[in-house]
């Protein structure tokens, strides 16, 4: 289901985009007094990124086996052990590296592709646009997960990088469409015409005039792409189609599932990786949400209005 949702989100995002006319400074100001959502999201992400980097140091060999398998959490193994006595905590730590890398790489590629096809097409217009939107529309209707399954099956040396690339390739189209719509809208702004009138070159207009104003959307797409990729990779790994040997949270779940961890009641094996995905995913979701709020301030949630005090105040002033 993760897939269709991702694709579905595109029209919604298209709808939400109303104005991006905010200068970086204002953005920075807003960033500083941004909502707790952004900060929570960023803090959690930062936490996982740090883990991703230091995992090789604190969990040097997550595959280290021992003769006692399936131990429930203990002091020595805070998250217990797998069936072949691997420390689940170490695996989760190592999996963090994989999952974070996938999110980052796939998010980046999604953004690059959607920029090439969305911004490029939208800005250049004419034949280029026709071609770019045709390609992205076709990719949009191609069924993602099955395609993913086939392509990952095709690629022999499936590494985490390759998986990320493949995920990005099947999922950039929605983002490109949103970006194209937004590019068209930015392109028709007067300042783009003004830049033309100032005889700026096409490239400069694209890079300096248009792109910066698409930044919030691009950022949101990066976050969204990363989230989607992490979920998609987890799904793929779960189906046994992930990167072999590559540790990610999805692959831990795959092994847990195959070793009948559920039947054996080894909850410590399958709960932590899933929870990690959910928490990191939620963090990305929160960041995305606050970007949406930046783009469309109406979406902000409101603090509860203190009705009582207001009424009292009004009565008093009457």
């Amino acid at each position, binding site marked *: 289901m*993760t*897939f*269709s949702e991702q694709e579905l989100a595109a029209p919604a995002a298209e709808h939400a985009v109303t104005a991006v006319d905010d200068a970086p400074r204002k953005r920075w100001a807003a960033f500083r007094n941004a909502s707790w959502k952004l900060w929570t999201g960023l803090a959690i992400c930062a936490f996982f990124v740090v883990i991703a980097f230091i995992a090789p140091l604190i969990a040097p060999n997550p595959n280290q086996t021992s003769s006692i398998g399936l131990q429930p959490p203990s002091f020595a193994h805070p998250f217990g052990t797998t069936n072949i006595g691997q420390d689940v905590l170490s695996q989760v730590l190592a999996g963090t590296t994989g999952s974070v890398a996938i999110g980052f790489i796939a998010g980046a590629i999604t953004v690059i592709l959607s920029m090439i096809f969305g911004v490029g097409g939208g800005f250049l217009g004419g034949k280029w646009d026709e071609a770019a939107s*045709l390609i992205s529309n076709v990719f949009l209707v191609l*069924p993602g997960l099955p395609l993913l399954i086939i392509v990952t099956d095709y690629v022999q040396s499936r590494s985490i990088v390759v998986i990320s690339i493949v995920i990005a390739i099947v999922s950039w189209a929605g983002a490109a469409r949103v970006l194209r719509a937004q590019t068209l809208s930015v392109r028709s702004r007067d300042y783009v015409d003004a830049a033309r009138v100032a005889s700026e070159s096409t490239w400069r207009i694209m890079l300096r005039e248009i792109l910066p104003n698409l930044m919030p959307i691009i950022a949101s797409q990066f976050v969204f792409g990363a989230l989607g990729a992490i*979920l998609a990779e*987890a799904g793929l790994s779960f189906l046994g189609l992930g990167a072999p040997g590559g540790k990610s949270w999805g692959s831990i779940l795959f092994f847990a599932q195959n070793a009948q961890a559920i039947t054996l009641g080894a909850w410590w094996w*399958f709960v932590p990786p899933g929870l990690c995905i959910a928490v990191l995913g939620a963090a990305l979701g929160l960041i995305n949400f606050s970007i949406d709020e930046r783009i*469309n301030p109406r979406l902000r949630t409101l603090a509860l209005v203190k009705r009582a005090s207001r009424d009292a105040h009004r009565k008093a002033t009457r």
Partner: protein
Amino acid sequence: MRYYLRKVVFYLLAGWIAITLNFFLPRMVKGNPVQVIIAKTQRLAPLPPEARHALELQFGQTHEPLIVQYVSYLQHIFTGNFGLSVTYYPSPVVDVIGQALPWTLGLVGIATVISYIVGLLFGSYIGWRRGSWLDSLVPVSTFLSAIPYFWLALILVYIFGVNLQWFPVTGGYDNTVMPGFTWDFIGSVIYYGLLPAFTIVLASVTSQVLAARNMMVSTMAEDYVVTARAKGLRPGRVFGSYAMRNALLPSITGFAISLGFIVNGSVVTESVFSYPGVGYTLIQAVENDDYPLMQALFLIITLAVLGANFVADIIYGVIDPRTRIAS
């Protein structure tokens, strides 16, 4: 005319590209069905070398050039002849899919519809009551929508299936009951479908809630909603007829499209619950290098998506008067 022509041309082109990809992608995958069968069999029993020939004959392996295969593939699509499945040899692919499709449509379809209806209504309501305590559900939904679907399924299976044993955890119905229009069977289908359906709804409803809430909030600030309130209309009418109706217009398209993606989305679902639908069949086909089956499944999925998009285009035209042709 031009506009519709373009649309039709687009759909045709997209269809053709998808069909062509469907043909070439599986063929790029290494291995062939005979080799797969041999490898599988050899793990269990020795297989004399001569067997390869028999198997190649059985699976109708051709050594024709790709382009010839491609042309006959195109011809076969139009005649609805997808050949014989390798996995379920020699059942026709059409039969294999015909058996799997109703399960997928039933489970995922109904669950999708429910999650949409619940999600959109609930999301709209949260948006409508912006500023109330309901707003605090928004971050919660963000968290829920980030949970990997299959993991949620695993947890539910663990709790309700394995520990509490309230629900069966695999299959489409109690396989000691013979299918038919009997209460036993229908009851069993519903009973077996409850947990998977609940999981799908739980996992996907939150993103609907968020989307609907955001659209509702945007719509609420539209002048016509403010006008409706100024007109002193009953809140129910303002909510339903003015705010929600407009807020949810875009979701209708989304809904139609997601119906097209049902088959697509069913892969992980069905593999967790071992549900006898199309998604499971697809995994089987991939594992067995079953080109004919894979191609037909892709074709169905792609056509469903294309069709849903097309329908969405049309529906949108019907429900949004702005896109109607002025007569």
